């Protein structure tokens, strides 16, 4: 900052011949510097808006909902009575959903990424797949809900089951996983691939033994972040009919289920004020799960940077 200002100062002083223009030039430099300072403040404040909102949001939610969060809250089903309400069904529903979504997205996401990075020729077909993936990333999540409702719930007759929800979520977050996995695979130095081929390794041996181990932390980080998006999604699951009032936890992938975001949504809409506090309690649980997943992702990223750095 100071070097740059000195430069401006110098320029204002040296560049002029008469004292009059010199004075004007100096004034102008003063003005330009002031503008810069004002803008600096404005830009900083704008950035802080996001930080402040996040702080207010977290404070508001914790302050509203904390008193409801206890062991009973985790072990009770939803109820007409606020004091008997809990998140048992949606909590287990969310965990089931993520448990089924994770392997599906991992297999299809990493499979696609390997195909595009290691096998596909650079022709119209691979460009079509890429264009398609970037467009899918921009499709509103509720539209995936319509797809899930039509194909999985009704078309395949899976109904309002965990599997329907997981398949829908898989398609929704697949673009995120593919992009992250491609980046991770792309970052594998080509010298390692060459070393492997030079010893007579086949393409798949090279991928399986060199490329994937090297890129795995990056792939896992991307997958976890994508899953944390899935765990917070509401609209597509409403569309596929993940019902709100569930008084049991799923026993297998064909059982009906609900998830935390849907439960939070339905509590938010209830007239009794206590239910909004309970909704905040549910949000605390949801955010705690998200925080855990993010911490895991950061942990993996750091481990990865240490190892390859």
């Amino acid at each position, binding site marked *: 900052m100071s070097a740059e200002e000195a430069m401006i100062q110098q320029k204002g002083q040296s560049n002029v011949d008469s004292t009059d223009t010199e004075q004007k030039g100096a004034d102008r430099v003063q003005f330009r510097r002031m503008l810069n300072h004002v803008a600096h403040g404005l830009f900083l404040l704008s950035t802080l808006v996001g930080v402040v909102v996040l702080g207010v949001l977290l404070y508001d939610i914790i302050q509203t909902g904390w008193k409801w969060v206890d062991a009973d809250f985790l072990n009770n089903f939803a109820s007409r009575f606020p004091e008997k309400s809990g998140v048992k069904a949606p909590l287990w529903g969310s965990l089931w959903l993520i448990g089924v979504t994770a392997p599906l997205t991992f297999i299809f996401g990493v499979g696609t990424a390997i195909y595009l990075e290691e096998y596909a020729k650079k022709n119209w077909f691979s460009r079509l797949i890429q264009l398609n993936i970037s467009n899918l990333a921009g499709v509103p999540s509720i539209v995936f809900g319509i797809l899930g409702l039509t194909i999985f719930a009704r078309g395949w007759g899976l109904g309002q089951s965990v599997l329907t929800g997981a398949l829908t979520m898989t398609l929704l977050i697949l673009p995120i996983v593919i992009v992250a996995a491609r980046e991770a695979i792309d970052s594998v*130095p080509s010298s390692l691939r*060459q070393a*492997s081929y030079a*010893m*007579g390794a086949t393409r798949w041996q090279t991928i399986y033994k060199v490329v994937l181990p090297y890129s795995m932390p990056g792939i896992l980080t991307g997958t976890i972040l994508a899953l944390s998006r899935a765990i917070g999604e509401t609209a597509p699951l409403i569309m596929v009919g993940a019902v709100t009032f569930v008084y049991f936890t799923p026993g297998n992938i064909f059982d009906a289920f609900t998830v935390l975001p849907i439960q939070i949504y339905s509590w938010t809409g209830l007239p009794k004020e206590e239910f909004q506090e309970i909704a905040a309690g549910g949000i605390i649980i949801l955010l705690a799960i998200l925080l855990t997943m993010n911490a895991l992702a950061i942990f993996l990223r750091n481990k990865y940077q240490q190892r390859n750095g």
Partner: protein
Amino acid sequence: MAEQTVLTKPAIQVENLDLYYGQKQALYDVSMDVEVNTVTALIGPSGCGKSTFLRTLNRMNDLIPGVQIKGTIRLHGESIYDRNIDVEMLRKQVGMVFQAPNPFPKSIYDNIAYGPRIHGIRNKKTLDEIVEKSLRQAALWDEVKDRLRDRATGLSGGQQQRLCIARALAVEPEIVLMDEPTSALDPISTSKIEELLQELKNKYTIVIVTHNMQQAARVSDKTAFFLNGELIEYNDTATLFSNPANKKTEDYITGRFG
């Protein structure tokens, strides 16, 4: 393997080799034979095609899209660009060491065992023996024998390159290609590897690309001089350096260009 097959005298025979990167021709009508149990050096200025030529010998150029080859290369009589050649089997016989050391981010042991494992060796004891033998051949065993489980990326540059040589030897190739193997190393590591080459040629046939003419003179039995994709001169190293037949060779080795 070597016991079952009668190995013919020249290890590699190259005849009328042309190579194209897409439209651009990079090698012009190269013909040369490489003798068994010798060190053959390929020299020439940057971009002359010597590395490209080296990579045709184990078909590493196949990995670059748009590369086309005309002419024939025979390995102990068998044409390696024939339609139904298994490039993996070929590369197992023709190993390669690269310009910059490129150990896998795995343990020293796993680096050496990588090749044998992909070729189907699972037995722990056999692998142990191969690892020790390869590391000994690469003159690295004494330095690393107590830390085989350490990450290979923690070794010094010179050690890493000897590890890469050991890794290439672990699949028991007949021929080892080296693409400027010492260009990223300090002088002491370089001389260690040069000594090593003299040991290795008793068992292997070595083709080495080098940017450094002194190195070629020090380590090789035969030297090939490339310029603009053409093989200008190929002769015994002593002859080529003391009494070059071609004016261009003379200009290059006396430092008039390159």
